[in-house]
């Protein structure tokens, strides 16, 4: 059992393909929360997130192919989920109108300077979950996606760039802008008053 827990994802998937259902349970327990929250944050609809979540895992279950060695299981899993969600949006339309064009440079100019915010202000973020979701909803789609892949998928920037087929520099700037905007939106008013 301890071997199962310490196995990496690829080894667990191989064991599952050979008939070890317990290995799948470990794999599922590892990634269920992150994948679900990634989907929830990306589409903003828990029922749709559940649907895509289930489709993703069942697709993995039914797929007889082994994971490619060059791609980490985590990247593979989130790629499947992302593709499924995009397919759903193509078929049924995207209900959430957060895909507006975004001038990242202009947006950066509007953000408060980082020097103005002290470390205390950065730590005093609101823990109100509704406020977290509202702040996420405020982000443009591309920035939200990059941030969620980084936050819940724990993917590196080059993995996100490969998955979204975007240049790595673009991914890096999207993440930076997303972080700046989220800090601004989630900054505690009391902290702002102190810093002011």
């Amino acid at each position: 059992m301890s071997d199962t827990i310490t196995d990496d994802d690829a080894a667990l998937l191989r064991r599952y393909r050979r008939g070890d259902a317990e290995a799948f349970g470990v794999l599922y327990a590892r990634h269920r929360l992150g994948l679900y929250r990634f989907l929830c944050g990306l589409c903003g609809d828990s029922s749709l997130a559940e649907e895509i979540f289930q489709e993703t895992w069942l697709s993995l279950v039914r797929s007889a192919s082994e994971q490619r060695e060059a791609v980490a299981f985590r990247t593979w899993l989130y790629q499947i989920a992302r593709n499924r969600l995009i397919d759903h949006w193509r078929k049924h339309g995207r209900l959430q109108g957060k895909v507006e064009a975004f001038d990242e440079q202009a947006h950066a100019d509007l953000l408060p300077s980082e020097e103005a915010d002290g470390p205390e202000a950065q730590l005093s973020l609101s823990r109100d979950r509704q406020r977290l979701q509202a702040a996420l909803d405020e982000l443009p789609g591309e920035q939200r996606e990059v941030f969620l892949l980084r936050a819940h998928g724990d993917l590196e920037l080059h993995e996100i760039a490969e998955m979204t087929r975007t240049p790595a520099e673009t991914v890096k700037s999207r993440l930076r802008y997303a972080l700046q905007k989220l800090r601004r939106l989630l900054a505690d008013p009391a902290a702002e008053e102190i810093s002011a």
Partner: protein
Amino acid sequence: MNQDQRREDELERQLLAHFRAHGEGEPSAELDARILAAAREAVRPPAPSLGQRLHAWLFGPGGRQRWSVAFAGLACLGVGVSLTFQNLDRQPPEYAVAPAPAMAPAAPAPLARSAPDPDAGYSAEPAAPPMQAFSAPAPAAEMKKAASQFESAPVAALADSATADARIAEQARLAADEAFPPAAKLAKPVAAPLEPALQQGLREVLELRRQGQAKAADERLEALRKAYPRQDLDALLKALEPSPAP
């Protein structure tokens, strides 16, 4: 520059950790159960083949007792097969006896084997001697008698058909004799396979005709027709009539 980068990385780490810690939402227990059940179902091993099941049955727990059962089964099978082959060897002569006598009058081969002269076969034996022996009342118990009576019914039917075949063969022979009348054959009695009563009756008819008692002869012949409806009495009479002197 490096300090700014470190500070930015630290801020990113804090924000990501904050979102991970206070993120909202979790898949329902039903959804978890559904997915895990589907995963278990997908890796369920296929039903073992017959060979695998036999192997597991023989070499699994309690295999010693099963081996003895398997050997006993094989032994029974071997005994059954050997008995079957032995009986198969015995059956042909037993079955060959029954139909042969019924067909004997129509088949010239057995007759030729029993006597070199073809006509001698007709006069040698009655139609179905083995059948008669088979259907004759045995001096044993009642059960044997009942059994023989039961068996005599199909034998009688066979005898009838044999008689019909004999009649056809006889008519053919008579036609051949008319075309090429051999004196020796015509002089011989041709009603050998006939029953003595019938033969006697036919002779009486001929005698009555010879004496000029045509009416009595016809009455006698009619009585014979009723008694032997299957016999072609005219042909038999013709065969019994003495051939005119050349």
